[in-house]
């Protein structure tokens, strides 16, 4: 199974049409995500990991690295198995 980082980067690359994604990249400033892109990304992460995220908390996440941490925590809280 791919790691959380690999899965987050793959979805982000697919959604935003970018490659060479770094952990410190900001979704908006570096990767060009607009308002609707952000909610689509959250929806895609939820589907990918089979989780439900708090809207405000999820949309407050700024960087790819923070998203990986956030999703990993939510998976843990909701009992979803992941590859770290």
């Amino acid at each position: 199974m791919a790691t959380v980082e690999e899965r987050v980067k793959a979805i982000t690359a697919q959604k935003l049409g970018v490659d060479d994604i770094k952990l410190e990249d900001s979704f908006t400033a570096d990767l060009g995500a607009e308002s609707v892109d952000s909610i689509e990304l959250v929806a895609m992460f939820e589907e990918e990991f089979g989780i439900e995220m708090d809207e405000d908390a999820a949309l407050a996440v700024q960087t790819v690295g923070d998203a990986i941490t956030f999703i990993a925590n939510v998976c843990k809280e909701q009992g979803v198995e992941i590859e770290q």
Partner: protein
Amino acid sequence: MVKAKKKHRLVDTKAPNLIEDVFPYNLPPLIHLQGPVVEYIDGEAVEFDFAAVKDRPILITDTTFRDGQQARPPYTIEQMVHIYDLLAKLSGPNGVIRQTEFFLYTKNDRETLDKCRALGHTYPECTGWIRAVKGDFRLVKEAGLKETGMLTSCSDYHIFQKLKFRTRKECMDSYCEVVAAAFEAGVRPRCHLEDVTRADIEGFVLPFVDRLMEMSSEVPQELSAKIRLCDTMGFGISYPGAELPRSIPKLIYKLNVECGVPSDRLEWHGHNDFSKVHTNGGTAWLYGADFVNTTLFGFGERTGNPPLESAVIEYIALKGDMCGLDTRVITELADYMRSIGLPIPDNYPFAGRAFNVTRAGIHAGGLRQDERIYNIFDTEKLLSKPPRVAITDKSGADGVAHWVNEFFGLTGDDRINKIRIHKLARWVIDQYDVEGRLTAISDQELEVKAKEFFPDYWEKYKS
């Protein structure tokens, strides 16, 4: 650079101060006035107590069927009767909208008046409007009206240039003859001082009003002349320090205090040629005229008159109470006016289709969190119009989420969050980015998409 006079200390807090004594939300924002206000008149400082307006018997009058009708093709009798009926409903049991005036010259005019009175409403009282012609009192008398407005134009533009009097005295004598005829006929005259904001106040207006007051002192109180100050061209100025004849404070003071016209016989009638009409009406109330004359949606000669519905909101704001007014009828009246072909701009305050519709996504985000952030007051309760968002490329996901929740009537925890509306939000953005659309997306289009993207909600709330 101007030197600062005072340092201001931050009052830190964890609880917001929403200033709810001014912005109660279940009422329009209240107007709290502190006095005294000073105006220099003839070199003397004169104090006005604005706060007294809360307890003064100020009222609204209406001229939708007279001045309002001069700005458009005639209403049918049925239309006028329906509008009158709604005005009575809006006015409420206290008769805040106290009077409305009617032409009396044609058979239709008189039939309309009869049908309105047959509805049996106490308010608005029906009054007439005639030229300053003695014979016209027969019409007033036959119609059984107790009061009528009559033209007593008072600027030299009217006295000499229009009416062709040779002297002011000839003009004044002529007007006073007609007033005497009104008294004889047992009809209360309401003298409309046309073009007063362009008149010689000391040289004609005050002597004329003095004479009206003398004549009134010789008749029963209920016949005593009322004075309507007509700002015919919209020249009136509300600012303290403005000079006569344009100063509303000084005009009202002179008539009220120097001539002794009681406040309950003083009325302000404005026009909007300089976009001052609503504030000028409020100013007249504050400086001592009890009545402000208005028309529905400001329809009136040229640029129109003080909008009645705005005067209603101002009235509640000054009084701090609904005073029996049913403000939801404003929306009924607006819908009716549109249905009979009167245009009301979408962004028109209180009555336009989009007066509380935001197009900015960032504002929609605010509405989503707490509608008070971007709604002027509880427009759903007071006007049957909840705040809404119009969907464009500027609406963002917040705007789309607000629209969806409002459409399905979802509140509190039942609301659909932004993440769940991502497909509709994407469709909206693609309309502009991909399809090159330049217009707002209509509710009808969004409804089709809402059915497609939210079938469960559609089934539960719309089928």
